[in-house]
């Protein structure tokens, strides 16, 4: 592993080797980015096994399309986009995206001080996993990947207003769930402290 890492000191070198179809470079890329890219897949697909399968397909796509990467922008960003597309394709083919248009409008979000939120990334991943697929997909695309509503609407085949309303509902639900999780963690720590005393 150390040897492999030494071989590819710079990203440009790694990309060059990948473009030549070097299996060592492929292995190196996988070792370096698989965990991060699997996390991207899990954000869209709640099932870890299925997400792993999609990640494998995503890596295959990366190796196939490596010639298309011209060094403009970050390589990781390019890979993330490919992985996101792969996850969306999976959701589309499996018809997992259920956009709940008829759901009641989310209430006005109360002011919540996110700075106080003391939740770990794993907890947040679990919370996102609880969102309905439509909310989760739109929230991921908009809040984390940074797509615009127009782009999301085009990707998912929905209107821009639907994308906006899905995002609004997702935010409201997330806030609620984070609050609940915070309260739960607070009470648990209190109980643990009392028991310690």
């Amino acid at each position: 592993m150390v040897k492999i890492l030494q071989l590819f000191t710079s990203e440009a070198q790694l990309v060059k080797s990948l473009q030549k179809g070097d299996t060592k470079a492929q292995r190196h890329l996988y070792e370096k980015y698989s965990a991060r890219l699997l996390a991207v897949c899990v954000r869209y697909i709640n099932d870890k096994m299925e997400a792993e399968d999609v990640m494998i397909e995503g890596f295959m796509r990366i190796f196939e399309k490596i010639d298309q990467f011209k060094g403009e922008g970050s390589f990781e960003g390019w890979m993330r986009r490919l992985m996101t597309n792969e996850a969306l394709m999976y959701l589309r083919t499996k018809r997992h995206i259920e956009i709940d248009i008829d759901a009641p409008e989310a209430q006005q979000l109360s002011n919540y001080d996110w700075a106080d939120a003391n939740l770990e990334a794993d907890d947040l991943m679990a919370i996102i996993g609880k969102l309905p697929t439509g909310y989760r997909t739109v929230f991921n695309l908009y809040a984390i990947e940074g797509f615009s509503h127009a782009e999301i609407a085009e990707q998912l085949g929905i209107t821009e207003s639907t994308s906006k309303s899905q995002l609004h509902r997702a935010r409201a639900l997330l806030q609620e769930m984070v609050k609940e999780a915070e309260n739960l963690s607070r009470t648990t720590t209190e109980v643990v402290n009392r028991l310690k005393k």
Partner: protein
Amino acid sequence: MKKHPTDKFFAEKLKEVEIKPRPEAWDKLQMRMQTKQRRIGGWWQQGPWLAAAGVSLVLVAGWVIWSLNQSPDLTVAHKETNKSMPPQKQTIPLGESNKIPSSTDTDAIAALAEIPKEPTDKEVEKRNIRSSVPQKDARQSEPTILESLALQSSQEVAVNENKTPERENVNIAPTKVEQPQLIAQNSPTSNQPVTKTVVLQLPELKQSLVASAQVESNVEKQSADNVEKQKSDNEDFGENLLNKPRKSTRMTKVWQQLKNAKNGEKVDWEEVGFNPNKVLAKATGKNEN
């Protein structure tokens, strides 16, 4: 544009999240890549041998098509070369016509029609059976199309033969025995494949010679001149069959013409079997169209 606090919070926390895949995931990825490469990488990527095989296959197919297109020219050439040894094709049909006196003319023609066809063992067997057993009902259903084709072709050639007064057979009044003879002489030339007749003749050589002897005795009664002619023809045939196989004769002719070409002498293209000038003219004519 200012980012919503919820989005900001989640984006910051989740951007660097890592979930380690199971160790077997890499093996799975490798396996899938291999199968995909095998699927995508077609036969042309399997190596230059396959490519070479493909090219040679195309060349062979092209040659076969070309030779098929050239067949009409070749038949003309064969017809002319056949004139020197016409009785070669006489023997079998004669034997049959003599052995089956009860069968009608069309039966004889049907039997003749099969001569230029592919000389498989099956057909040889068929013909043997037919000649020994004079019943025609069992096979009547099968060769009906062949019969009609044979009739057509033999008639055509018969007309052609009448136009050329070289042969004495034309002057002789047609009898029941001689009519199939005429057809027998002509049908192989009309249906052309020369090499096939040689293959057919060899296993029945004895039979055919006996048959030709019988014919001689029959025809003797009618015309002495005719018998002499036929006798000499049969002898010629025997010599041709035993000493000069058809294929080698043609090869030697072609070889001779090639020698002529090499020595700068005049080349008789009809001997070779095709004329490159004609082929060129045909090709350019096609291009113009």
